[in-house]
Each structure stands twice: as C-alpha cells, then as structure tokens.
C-alpha cells in the first residue's frame, strides 16, 4: 500500500511540476514539453491495453493517426470546420467506430498473434494515409493552417493559437484523461478487465463475457489515443503518415517499458525519459539510432520492470546487503 501511495504522490508531483513549468520562462521548451505531455497521454492509453488488460498491441499508432487525420481532413483538407466542438467528437467517434471493427478481428487472436495482427492492421491504416489522396494520402502529409477554435457563439472561450493557452489545454486533457481512466479502472468493468489480465480462463469460466469486455477496453484505449493524436495535430500544425508508422507504435511500447506498466505514472515517466533520451542522443552523437537501440537492448535485459520499479529494486538491493 505504501508503494501505491508513493505512486500517487509521484503523479501529483509530476502534474504540479508541469503546471508550474511555463512560469520558469523557458518558452523555447514549452513546445517540447507539451509534445511530451501528448505522448504521455498516448502512452497512458496504451497502458490500458498492455498494462491492465494484458493485450500487447503493436498497432496503437493507428488510433493516434486517426485522431490527427480527422482534424487535418476536416479543418484543412476539406475545410469543413475548425471548430473544436465538431472536430474533436468526429475524431473520437471515428476512432471508436474503426477500433470496434478492427477489434472484432484482432481480439479473436491471442498472444503473439495479437501482436502481429495489430501491427498488420495498423499497417493498413498507414498505407491508406500514405497512398489514398482522398484521405490526405501523401508521404509529406498535410500542413494545417490553424488550431481548433474553441468558441461559444461569437465568444472565444479559449484562444488556442496562444502557445501558453494551448500548453495548459493539453495538460488539462491529460489530467482529465487520467482521472477518467482512474475511475474506469475502479468500476466493476475495470476490475473485470484487470482480472482478464491475470487469468482469462478463470474469468471466462466464472461467466464474464471476456470478448465483449476486451472489445470495450480496446475501443476506450483507441479513443484516448485518438484524443492524443488530435491534440498532436492541433499543436504541431501538421500531420504525416509517420504518425501511424510501426515505429510510432514501437516507441509508445518503449515508453511503457521505460516507465513501467500498469500504473499511469509509468506512461508519463516513460514518455519523458524516452524523449529526453532521444534528444540527448540526437544532440551529442551522429548515430542516435545506434545508441538508442543499444540502450533499449540493455534496458530490456537488465531492467524489465521499468524506471518505476527502480526504487523497489534499489530497496531490495540495499535490503540484501
């Protein structure tokens, strides 16, 4: 119990630090931090599948991309509307509908098949936005001219073109997502889902509709991933097929491993660790991929529980000595 209290404290500290960060006046870094916050949300959404339900999806970037492209298509490609009130629900509903359909297929498989099949389906989405002009298909993606407008009537509720407003908007999105997911995991459905991770056959024989529950979680995780994608497109004035690439799916799994799974703080810590690590390698070496690759290999071999397990590992080590 002490340990989980520590995690809540860590979570609170992270949120407070992020709240205060812009007051440091490092304006140059606000952009980077808000991108990391978006990735943290993305990682937390995947954690719902991997860490809590035991479903290792290797195609989670597809839903990130659906959210991002939904905004890009509505606002710039087809110039339907910039309004937040329309584009966000469209993005979330698109992810929900598509992930429901994909889920019907992929959730029939287990374990290693699930890994490969989610990757393959994500690849379909990648090729769609890469090749089909009607949905913005091109290698370069789409440039966006504006961020979502958040108005009631003619009154501007929030001006997202203002970088600071955007920063806090993204942070609020992460905060509310974490709170919502926290409540979800404590609901009867959320508990049942965590039971599926521990022993699927037992849950099945007690009479839980395991397939349906997995499908619900799959859809929920995809919807939160598409929220992250939506925010990404809004924040960065652009989308491209790389957002849906398998690299992106692997990166987000990596963030979870770096940070530790089955605890929201893990996804957040992992997102920061991953981006900072990548940044350090890119700044100080010409061969950042090589060093990142070596780091991953060493990490998997020597620290399977992630950074979040470091305190308890150290404690165990000290205890032994």
């Amino acid at each position, binding site marked *: 119990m002490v340990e989980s209290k520590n995690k809540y404290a860590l979570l609170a500290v992270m949120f407070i630090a992020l709240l205060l960060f812009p007051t440091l006046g490092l304006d140059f870094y606000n952009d980077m931090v808000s991108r990391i916050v978006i990735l943290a949300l993305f990682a937390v959404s995947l954690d719902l599948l991997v860490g809590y339900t035991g479903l290792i999806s290797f195609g989670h970037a597809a839903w990130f991309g659906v959210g991002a492209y939904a905004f890009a298509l509505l606002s710039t490609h087809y110039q339907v509307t910039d309004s937040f009130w329309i584009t966000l629900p469209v993005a979330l509903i698109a992810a929900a509908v598509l992930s429901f359909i994909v889920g019907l297929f992929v959730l029939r498989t287990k374990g290693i098949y699930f890994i490969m099949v989610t990757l*393959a389906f994500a690849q379909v989405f990648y090729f769609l936005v890469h090749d089909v002009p009607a949905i913005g298909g091109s290698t370069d993606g789409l440039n966006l001219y504006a961020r979502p407008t958040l108005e009631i009537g003619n009154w501007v509720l929030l001006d997202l073109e203002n970088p600071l407003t955007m920063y806090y908007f993204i942070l609020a999105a992460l905060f509310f997502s974490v709170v919502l997911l926290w409540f979800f995991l404590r609901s009867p459905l959320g508990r049942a889902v965590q039971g599926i991770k521990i022993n699927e056959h037992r849950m099945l024989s007690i009479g839980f509709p395991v397939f349906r529950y997995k499908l619900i979680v799959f859809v929920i995780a995809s919807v939160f991933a598409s929220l992250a994608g939506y925010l990404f497109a809004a924040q960065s004035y652009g989308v491209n097929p790389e957002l849906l690439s398998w690299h992106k799916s692997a990166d987000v799994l990596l963030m979870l491993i770096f940070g530790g799974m089955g605890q929201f703080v893990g996804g957040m810590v992992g997102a920061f660790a991953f981006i900072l690590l990548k940044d350090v390698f890119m700044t100080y070496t010409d061969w950042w*991929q*090589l060093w990142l690759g070596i780091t*991953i*290999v060493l990490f998997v071999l020597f620290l399977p529980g992630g950074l979040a397990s470091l305190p308890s590992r150290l404690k165990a080590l000290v205890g032994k000595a």
Partner: protein
Amino acid sequence: MDILLGSLLIQALNAIQYGLLLFLIASGLTLIFGVMGVINIAHGSFYMMGAYFAFTITGLTGNFFVAVLLGAILSVIIGALLEWALFKHLYKRDHLEQVLLSYGLILIFEELRSIFVGDEVHSIDVPAWLNFSIPLGDIMSYPFYRLFMSGVCVLVAIGMYILINRTRIGSMIRAGATNSGMAEVLGVNISMVNRLVFSLGVGLAAFAGMINAPASAVAPGMGMEVLIVSFVVVVIGGIGSVWGALFAAMVIAFADTFGSVFFPSVAGMLTYIIMAMVLLWRPEGIFKR
C-alpha cells in the same frame, strides 16, 4: 502463344518466385517462434543485412556467388552470436520484452547500415551468365534469373525438409518444438538446438535478401516491408508450421501479384483482407499444430 495467356504465365511465374522468397523468410520466423517461443521483429533486418552483404562483398570480390557464400556464413555466425548474447536470455520472458529487444536491434542494424554503406539505393548486376531471357512464344520473354531464383529457393526448401524430417538434428528440432522440457530430459541439448535454429532462421532470411538483391533494389527500409508481409504469412499459416508458411506464402504471393494486375486499386489491401478472413475462420492459422 496468345498474349493474354502469355502474360498470365509471366504473372504466375512471378507469383511463384515471390512466394518462394516469402517462404524462405517466413519459415525462419516461424521456426524461431515454434521452437524457441521467441517473436523476433528484427527478422526483416536480417533480410536487409543479407542484401547489403551481397552488395558489399560483390563490390569487393566482383563475384556474386562468392558474396552469397560468404554472406551466408557471416549471417549464420551473426545469428549464433545474437542468440548467445541476447535472445537466450529472453526465452522465458514476456513477448513484449522480446518485441522491444528486437526493436532495439532494428535500430542498431539500420544505423550500422547507414554508417557502413550509406542511405542510397543500390543495385547489383545479375551475373553475366545468368543474364538472359527465355522466349515465351513470339513476342514475350522471361528473365532467366527469376527462374534461377525459384529453383534455388526450391533447393533450399528441399534441403530444409530433409534437415528437419530426415536427420538426427531435425528430430531434435522437432522434439524441441513439441515439448522442449521433455526433450531436454530425454537428453537433447536444447540450448544447442536453440542456437542452431536461430542461426538457421537468420541464415534463411539473409539468404533470401542476397538472392533477391539482383532482381530488385538494395535499399533502406527493405527489411520492414518483408517483415510485415512475413508476419501475415506466419499468421495465416499458423505459427510453427513450416508447411503452413509455404501454403500461406503462395496464397499471399498469388493474391498480391494477380491483385495488382486485375484490381490495382485494392491490391495493397488484399493481403490484409485475406488475413482478416482467415482469422475470422481460424484465429490460430490454417495449419495450426
């Protein structure tokens, strides 16, 4: 020969050749999983490594066949080293960790390729004595090298069949795939079998990359394309089943080749549509053991 029939024949030959190539790659992937329970997403990198070995060594020695021979030996050695240094530690671990470790390897391989050979697209000439076409009727012809590739792939497949079904080592591999614990108790040196199977898998992927290099480009990113398709092949065929891999590779190759002729707009999706349908019918593949 009538033009339609001739072009159908050409497409069929292309499909068979592509299917055999896919089979070599996917059989390594499925063997490694079937025997060791390891999912290795760096398998495409081994394919790429083969192609770059062929390119580099051909450049140094001027002889494509020397390059293939040396490349195969090098690849098998690299496979054994990787198994000994890394994969051996992951047999009992989660699939997730296997995925991440091999993802790390992909990054390492990509960067090493970039450092040593660069990011340009290269090509290798077809060896002169194989560089001719066979006439098909009056107007059409078919490049002989592609037939040669198919023949070599068939030979390798037969060799693999003999190795697995007719030799002592093969019976150990089969025992390891069925029940590695029991096999070990009965005196099979399972860690030796694992290393052998892993090296064999790496060798098969690299060999496919080498033999295909003169027929297509040697380019960055080539490993990932074949990896995803070979995943589909393994999923359709059923993990661990070499015959499943052969069957599925042919299905996918024919669908892909004829799809791009008759339904070019959906050809790219056809592979995945087939996979989805197979999964609805048999979630563990057609040839699930």
